[in-house]
């Protein structure tokens, strides 16, 4: 009898313990999509696209399937991604339609949805930022909260923003100084928090002058501590030093290549090039660290390498570029190919 029980347990453990074994899918399929076109040396390469976990070979294990048999299937796909962040091989995607955070763990081949912060469901999870310790922040302007989660989506703490912060959307985290930058879109300012959510600094105010904002949306901090802010309705990018001092700006309204029509996400690569998502034209524009236009890639469409109203942007330490392609219901990942020095 004991042997039978042990055998049964063994089978259950085998089925449940082996998480998600499926035929491994190559994450980096070489489809040959590069920009710019040859014969120019390639700078950006398409890697893969994230929309559904089963496309990446992430299968549900036995226990998950059993649970879903009882409780009903969860919709597991990216529906309307707003922002994206990544730490190593873990990718966090905020989804405004499903009101969840998708967590793709490409190394462990696991997928997870976070739909709650503790016992409070998300209302509109928008900005995501990762800190250096495998934790991530989520801003939820609908509930006026900024949440901190651990790498598995367990809530560590929540902070309700003060009344003078109207709509916290974009997030950026400075690992060196351990500062969280929160973009207050309706308040036209950046609020700088420390680890304990104490306010350190305010940057901006509404207006058209240097250092002012008009509906800023996204922000990104590069390694040296320089903060880049997408000043969306002033149609420009502004850069600030780690002390909040205004450094420079570039961009203006227009439909030419170096102009902006509706700038959304921003990020920098390891060479200091500034990438800006141009939402209305469905492209990513790449500028040098001094604001010179380097490359424009993308275009409208559902194919790989094209976008449909892209929003969020993130570049990790390995120069992988993540783009939240909102209306194509996916996150596309590219690689910046560093020029050999």
């Amino acid at each position, binding site marked *: 009898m004991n042997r039978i029980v042990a055998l049964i347990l063994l089978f259950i453990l085998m089925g449940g313990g082996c998480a998600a074994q499926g035929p491994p899918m190559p994450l980096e399929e070489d489809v040959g999509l590069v920009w710019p076109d040859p014969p120019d040396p390639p700078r950006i390469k398409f890697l893969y696209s994230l929309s559904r976990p089963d496309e990446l070979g992430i299968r549900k294990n036995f226990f998950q399937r059993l649970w879903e048999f009882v409780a009903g299937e969860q*919709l597991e796909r990216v529906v309307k991604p707003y922002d994206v962040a990544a730490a190593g091989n873990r990718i966090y995607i905020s989804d405004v339609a499903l009101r969840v955070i998708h967590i793709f763990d490409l190394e462990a081949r696991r997928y997870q949805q976070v739909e709650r912060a503790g016992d409070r469901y998300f209302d509109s999870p928008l900005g995501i930022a990762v800190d250096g310790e495998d934790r991530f922040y989520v801003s939820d302007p609908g509930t006026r909260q900024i949440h901190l989660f651990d790498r598995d989506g367990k809530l560590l703490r929540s902070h309700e923003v003060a009344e003078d912060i109207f709509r916290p959307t974009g997030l950026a985290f400075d690992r060196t100084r351990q500062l969280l930058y929160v973009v207050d879109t309706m308040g036209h300012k950046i609020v700088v928090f420390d680890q304990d959510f104490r306010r350190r600094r305010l940057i901006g105010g509404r207006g058209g002058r240097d250092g002012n904002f008009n509906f800023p949306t996204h922000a990104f901090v590069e390694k040296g501590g320089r903060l880049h802010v997408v000043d969306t309705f002033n149609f420009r990018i502004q850069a600030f030093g780690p002390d909040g001092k205004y450094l420079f700006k570039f961009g203006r309204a227009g439909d030419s290549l170096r102009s902006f029509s509706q700038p959304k996400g921003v990020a920098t690569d390891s060479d200091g090039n500034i990438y800006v998502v141009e939402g209305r034209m469905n492209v990513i524009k790449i500028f040098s660290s001094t604001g010179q236009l380097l490359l424009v890639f993308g275009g409208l469409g559902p194919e790989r390498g094209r976008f449909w109203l892209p929003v969020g942007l993130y570049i990790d330490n390995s120069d992988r570029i993540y783009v939240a392609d909102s209306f194509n219901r996916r996150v596309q990942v590219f690689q910046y190919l560093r020029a050999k020095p």
Partner: protein
Amino acid sequence: MMRLCRWILPIALFLVAYSGLAWGAGIVGSKHDLSSVTGPGPVKALSPALGGTTEICVFCHTPHNANSATDVRPLWNRNLSEQAYTTYTSFTLEHTAPALPTGVSRLCLSCHDGSIPIGSVLNIAGSSREITMTQRFITGQKQIGPDLRNSHPISFVFDAALKAADGQLFDPPPLVENRPSADVKLWDGGQVQCPSCHDPHRVQYPKFLRKPKFSQTDNLCIVCHDQPGWTSSTHRNALQVVNFGDGDGSHNVAERACLSCHDPHTKAGASRLHRDGANAAGVSVPSNTCFQCHKSLVPAVGQDVQTQFNKIGASHPITRDTATSNSGHEPIITTVTGIPPNTALPEDVLLVPGTASARGVPMTKHVECTDCHNPHRVRASNRTEGIRGIDITGAGTTVVQNVINDPELPDGTQKQFQLCFRCHGNSFDRFIPVRLDATGQPIRTTVGVPASLNTSGSNKFVEFQPSNNAYHPVAAAGRNTSAALNNQLAAAGLNTGSIIKCTDCHNSNEATTPGRVSNTPNMVSGPHGSIYTRLLRGRYVTDPRPFTRGPFVANNFQLCFFCHDVNAFNDSSRSRSDLTNFFSNDRENLHWRHLTNIDGVNDFGNALCHDCHYNIHSNVESANTLFEPPPDGDTHLINFDPTHTTADAAKPLWFFNPPNTTRFGRTSPGRNTISCNLVCHGVRHDRVDRFFYEHTPS
């Protein structure tokens, strides 16, 4: 050139603001004024020196900035041409995926995505791609969801061909020509887009709409939608005041017009843009829209139909034929996922039985309000106005374009059955759920059709044919024109030439006034719900068989006695030949004898009406009776319960005896008589105990 360009826009705005044209001035200070200087706020500077006025339009209208200077060219790719981008006035023609929103609507969507509220407005392709549903809904939030089914369709061409195919549209509005204009327009080559209804530049009406939201005669919807019969409909002209608690305040139904029942950005999961047309799980429940008003409200708005449907018992479908199980035309879809959304039964299937639906709409066995009522054309003076029906004539495919339910037609014929034949006619097999008897076997009354779990009941189109031998007079006057029957019906205000409606029997249990059922303000007349089984307005016991010692309980057959005088059946003192022809040789009332249980001396029949009139609609499909009718052909709706047997024949026999004829070993008297050959409770109504009862020509 650049200097002039810089000045044109502010000068134009300056002129526009002062000339009173509502174009640019309409947007300044509105929710679409995103300028860092002017809005919404106290400062309304017009001077370009402040750098403010140029910024109002630029958030949606990207200015040209075609700088041919070389520093614009990307350093990494010197071959990229500036001509890759279209100008700011045309957003279409580029995309290749057909199912995503196109054109000008993307302009709206590129901003309304969450960072700058209104909420998170999001649209992903509708019917041609996989529909995704969000997992939870916050009630009251107007979200244009990933499921496009809950928003008015956009990105489709509205032209004369569409108008001809639809049949309920006016001519297409004009294409975009001159701006500004307040009218409803088509965009991007004749397409309906977000700006067809919303004018982002002007706040004339709430939500940037181009027309008033609440107006009986000048609302937005009727610019394009031409519903036949709407102008005379009760729903268009009703003046009851309703407040839905959604912040729009109180308006009367006429003023709400289309918005009483439709919401262009409705709850996720609702079909046909029904207002409030989905439940908390996001499953489409069209009847919820009707129940917004047609429920118990104080003061009352519409007739309270919801209370009728609430009578339907928890056990569905009805599997046991008891006297007290609730029943009704159940319109509510279950909340079990996987059952296709309820969109009412397909019209083409209802009218031509046996056909598959041309539109591929899945068949469900649930009924919706709109299967019987056309809400655009319904009138208090004819509650089925605009519904098509199947007539009694022909092969069951004769379609009547409009069923007249109220009032009865002047010549006394009624046509309500045309509506019922949509489901209870030749195609009943596909809609009527199976009914099981006490042992769990399916009940069948149709001769020759094998019993199966998919069918039950019977074909009313066949049963009510005027050529049949006996039937309740639904489609034609009955065959029994005897004086006795006339007297039976007189107290109820009927006679042998009367024609009744289906709803004179199948109605709410509150229809307790004898005779025909009429619709009064306090009672909802109709086959919606009843506490009695089979949607009957009164008790009609068939199973289990009650047994009480004493005279029979009239209340067990309350249904019949709404029209038929009960004295014809329960009077034991005389034959009551004035009211009935069913009496014996020695003038005993045979109905009384069969129905009563005991008279203190003898045990009698303890029968139910059901025993001999098994199918009281008609006996054309008697599965267990053989007839030898009298010369006048009337069989008095006799058809025996399937459990009756006889020793002399395969089935019980009901037959006419000419005078002085010998049959089964007995000789009939010298008068016309009728006999039954069957066994009941061991009483053999055959050779030995055969009875003769008077046959009076009917």
